């Protein structure tokens, strides 16, 4: 792309095929159908096949699981931030609560992973919602800061009170029966989360969430209790995080204080920023990119974090729309220079 000159500007137009596929004509010809389905199928089939493709590289299968866990956290962040309007920097809280509840359910009550994961998802979601309930009236930065404090505090409290295994954590948690179960539980959860949430936000409930985010005064004046909806949003998002935490506990057969670690709060946010906020799929893509990068950079020690930080800053400052939005735009529109 050349330098913008003074006497011309860039014009963006929807592609013909995009316009055609907006309406009922979408099913009129295979090209239209393909236009609509290809990216979606690519995403779904790609994710579903990934474990199979990665059979020769068992280590990367495991990385895929981690990618999915971070993706769940990123979706949770994206949903809460861009659809409910609560920017939560405390993804690690969900992670920890989910991990601990799964580990406790498994080691104290002997429930198998396939039971503890859903139970701790719901239970953990409820616990997180109750914990965050007093903070819900806060907005913007203030909610962000308080939510950032929660995981730190939770870790400290477990440490100070020496409960749940103290600093050693809970060991001897059962693993998933096989790697396939682990991966497909996670992949299906990610896909389900993305598509259910994307559907939900375009339904009437989703409009209420948007309303709470855009203009909570008007929502209040419409006779809707915004705290209920915020709590509901937090519940959904913390359920996703707890699901990730529970899976992590079972993958590593262990839960400990470090599940409240800052990384679980920061990386999902970075992924969302890189992938494109407000698209839900974007945050998944962000994780697919960032987590492997982190693996490649492992040999460079702490430089990894510095590189991460620079990528993040660059995206936030220069390409704040994120990869997903950028991709969508390129897919749906073409650009040309026009004279003015």
């Amino acid at each position, binding site marked *: 792309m050349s330098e913008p000159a003074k006497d011309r500007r860039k014009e963006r137009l929807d592609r013909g095929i995009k316009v055609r596929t907006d309406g009922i004509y979408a099913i009129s010809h295979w090209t239209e159908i393909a236009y609509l389905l290809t990216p979606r199928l690519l995403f779904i089939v790609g994710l579903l096949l990934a474990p199979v493709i990665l059979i020769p590289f068992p280590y990367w299968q495991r990385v895929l699981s981690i990618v999915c866990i971070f993706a769940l956290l990123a979706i949770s962040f994206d949903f809460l*931030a861009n659809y409910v309007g609560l*920017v939560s920097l405390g993804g690690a809280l969900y992670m920890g609560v989910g991990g601990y509840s799964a580990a406790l359910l498994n080691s104290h009550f002997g429930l198998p992973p396939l039971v503890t994961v859903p139970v701790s998802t719901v239970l953990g979601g409820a616990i997180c919602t109750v914990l965050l309930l*007093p*903070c819900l*009236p*806060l*907005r*913007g*930065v*203030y909610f*962000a*800061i*308080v939510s950032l*404090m*929660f995981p*730190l*505090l939770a870790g*400290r*409290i477990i*440490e*100070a009170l020496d409960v749940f295994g103290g600093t050693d954590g809970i060991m001897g948690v059962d693993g998933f029966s096989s790697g396939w179960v682990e991966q497909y539980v996670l992949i299906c959860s990610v896909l389900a989360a993305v598509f259910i949430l994307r559907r939900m936000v375009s339904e009437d409930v989703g409009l209420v969430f948007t309303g709470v985010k855009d203009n909570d005064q008007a929502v209040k004046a419409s006779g809707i209790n915004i705290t209920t909806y915020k709590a509901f949003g937090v519940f959904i998002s913390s359920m996703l995080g707890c699901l990730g935490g529970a899976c992590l506990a079972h993958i590593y057969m262990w839960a400990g204080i470090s599940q409240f670690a800052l990384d679980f709060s920061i990386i999902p*946010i*970075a992924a969302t*920023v890189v992938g494109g906020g407000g698209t839900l799929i974007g945050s998944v893509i962000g994780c697919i990119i960032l987590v492997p990068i982190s693996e490649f950079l492992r040999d*460079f*020690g*702490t*430089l*990894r*974090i*510095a590189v*991460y*930080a*620079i990528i*993040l*800053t660059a995206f*936030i*400052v*220069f390409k*704040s729309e994120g990869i997903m939005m950028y991709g969508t735009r390129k897919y749906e529109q073409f650009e040309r220079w026009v004279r003015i």
Partner: protein
Amino acid sequence: MEIIIYGIINSVTLALMALGFTLVYGVSRLPNFAHGALYVLTGYVAWMLMYRVGLYYPIAMVLSLIITGLVGAAMYQFVLVRIRGMAISEIIASYAIGLAILEGLRWGGLKGGTITLPPFVDGSIELIGVSVDYQRLIVVLIGVLLVGLLWLFVNRTKLGLALKGMAQDERAAMTLGIDSDYMAVVAMALGSVLAGIAALVLFPLGSIVVESGYNVLIMAVAVCIVGGLGSWNGAILAAFIIGFAQILTQVYLGAHYQVVVALVAIIVTLISRPSGLFGRQKELEERV
């Protein structure tokens, strides 16, 4: 007795850590989450200049302050100015820059806690039966001096008044011919220098480690939130409240509850009194 003396020392330490943060936020509404990184950077640069380049201690200190100020200004000028007003982006971007500086330093060899700055005056003194080292007294002295100078600067100089104007109402200040971007750069540089001064007086008490960057950031944020973001009086008051609370918990409850105190203070303050101790009504509306 030692509770009072060390409470004061601890409080002034916290105030020093928080001063730069609250100045930047107060003037340009920019939560500078790279604060801790600038703190460590100053200490490291001063150490480098002293032991690797071989400059005199005072010269090294002044130079390192200048460098930190420039880094802060550059950070604003080249990165943060593009995302002014988007609070969350500001937090993430400044935190990321801080992270890059801190972890870059660690990668570049700042590890293990074996480097430190020498104290200004060595030794200790008995003060009403409590032994205190001179460096801590200097910390208190400089802290008080700095607050005084800052007050004079803000209330008596043209630049300071302009900054104060910005802090109160950015738009009105702009209509009065104050260049808000320039002022924000100045504030950022000044805030960085304040972080640097804190580093130079506090590092001789300990060793220069990357982790202290994170601690300083947490404490600065805690103090500023409890005091009401952007309010200088509030920050100082909050530094004393948290400072004494920490010393008291350390004496009566156990040192490992110290951080818990700060965190609980933040959460309780935000939930019960969102604008902080000294926040203004306008801000209250923003928050709730």
